[in-house]
């Protein structure tokens, strides 16, 4: 099972890890993200982040105090890279009313892969973005129809791409 963390969820993960390393109490969202992260460590789940998010983590890793902490995270989280047709699908999603940033992360969950290049897309996008979740659910039929139409015009393996479920971390069944 593959799950892409959007930027804010990845931020909550980092902030939450930092807070428990500081003996501080994480926020509700950070706790939900930490719990999700901990559960994924025990199961057959691969977590992914987008390259811009990875850049932030790598910058923090340059501060010696955080180097090992960031290595701890990056050993457990993969970086999803856009693959062929990512931009085309992101444009389609923008046409359906998603913001530029939302369209990019949602498109990465359909046309994204990791360093092995042997996977295509994600099962889930984990996000706390209520409006994005609602819009995704509301436009589900249209989104599916647009992807089906696009898949008819593109070669394998890209024509096997699927849309992910877009849910809050605590709603993802593991």
């Amino acid at each position, binding site marked *: *099972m*593959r799950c892409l963390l959007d*930027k*804010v969820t990845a*931020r909550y993960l980092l902030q939450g*890890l*930092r807070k*428990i*390393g*500081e003996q501080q109490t994480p926020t509700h969202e950070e*706790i*939900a993200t*930490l*719990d999700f*992260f*901990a559960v994924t460590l025990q199961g057959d789940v691969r977590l992914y982040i*987008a*390259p*811009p998010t990875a*850049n*932030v983590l790598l*910058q*923090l890793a340059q*501060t010696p*105090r955080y180097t*090992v*902490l960031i*290595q*701890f995270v990056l050993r457990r989280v993969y970086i999803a*890279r*856009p*693959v*062929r*047709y*990512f*931009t085309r699908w*992101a444009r389609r999603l923008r046409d359906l009313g998603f913001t530029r940033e939302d369209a*990019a*992360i949602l498109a*990465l*969950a359909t046309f994204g*892969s990791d360093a*092995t*290049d*042997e*996977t*295509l*897309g*994600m*099962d889930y996008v984990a996000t706390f973005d209520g409006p994005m979740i609602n819009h995704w659910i509301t436009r589900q039929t249209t989104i599916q129809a647009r992807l089906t139409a696009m898949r008819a015009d593109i070669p*394998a*393996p*890209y024509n*096997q*791409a*699927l849309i992910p479920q877009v849910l809050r971390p*605590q*709603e*993802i*069944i593991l």
Partner: protein
Amino acid sequence: MSQSTLTLPVSVEQIAVAIKQMNREEQRRLLKLVPDLSQAASEPPVRTIEEAQEHIEQLRVQVLATLGNQPLSPDEPFLGGLTIAQYDALTEQAKDELWDLLAGLDLMEMEEIEVNANALPA
């Protein structure tokens, strides 16, 4: 008498792919054939608070180990040249902008790569 165990020739994820490709009528038929699915779907998937606390406690041990068992303090540096305390005082919007600035990369402008011809879809 020992109970025989049926081993599925495919993974749950592969079954999910097949179900996702079914039309609504086929999915309804599947629910009639496997009524347990409806019941499982109606059960709350959330983990209990106690489970979450246990998970976070396990993480706390691991995180502290990465920090040499010396907890961080609010005046230590964090992101963007800010201390932890300064960072935490930022609004969500300001944190968002700081992350965008530090990312230094626009996902929409990234070069697309090719995947292996046998890439496994989600």
